[in-house]
């Protein structure tokens, strides 16, 4: 049909996931709301998942997808525990700012 049909190579997917990971990292550094910081961690996890799937496909290896499956399970557990911690911290204080959380300071 058309002379030039550009097919995205694995490199495109990897660069996209690199950008996504960096956006997540900047979000963790910049935001001060613990919930939003959690969301940025989810962004980074998703970037890594995309990398695993892409490289697994490029290497014709299904194990990349198996690893992503386990990463998703662990991410779900991590979110549950993290939100539980946030709920129990925020119940006894009003503000939501991670700079105010200094209970563990020596």
């Amino acid at each position: 049909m058309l002379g030039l049909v550009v097919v995205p190579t694995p490199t495109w997917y990897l660069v996209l996931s690199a950008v996504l990971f960096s956006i997540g990292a900047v979000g963790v550094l910049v935001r001060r709301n613990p919930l939003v910081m959690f969301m940025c961690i989810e962004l980074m996890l998703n970037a890594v998942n995309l990398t695993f799937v892409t490289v697994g496909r490029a290497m014709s290896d299904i194990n990349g997808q198996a690893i992503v499956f386990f990463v998703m399970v662990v991410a779900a557990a991590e979110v549950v525990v993290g939100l539980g911690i946030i709920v129990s911290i925020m119940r006894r204080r009003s503000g939501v700012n991670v700079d105010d959380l200094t209970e563990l300071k020596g």
Partner: protein
Amino acid sequence: MELFVFTCASVMVLVGALGVIFRKHPVHAALSLVLTLFGIAVLFVAQSAEFLAAVQVIVYAGAIVILFLFVIMLLGVDKAEDLKIEPIASQRWIAGLAGLGMVGLLTAAVVSGSDVLRERGLGIASSVAGENADANIQQLANSIFSDYVFAFEVTSVLLVVAVVGTVLLARRRTGKGIA
């Protein structure tokens, strides 16, 4: 066709990710996160990882974001964060520079390593997707339930521990007894 899908999905992913960072309101950030997660699911489908795309939509866009929204609602923390205030001086600039540097480094690494992928990458989609429609699920099941069956069982223990721990953490203290 794959180019079109890739472009649309990347725009979804990037717009959602930037929304998570820049929207002041936590609820808006959570909804932007949904956009990103759907974009990632589309990219999974484009790379013939259909099972993971379904799990992505169900677990991430369904369960995890709903959990976020529930916590926002429960805590009443849905006040907009004032992004003008900078708690640490010039922190934003340094964070932005660090992010740009990270993009540059990762992109350089990916580009310099792309030859490795291209050599082995011929005929990739066919061997992963196979000729029948369920090949992805069958291969994944073969991998998880044979090579990784122990990790799979440990995963169930992890989930039980996480649920019990969260119930203990988030429970109101009644005064007597532990926790």
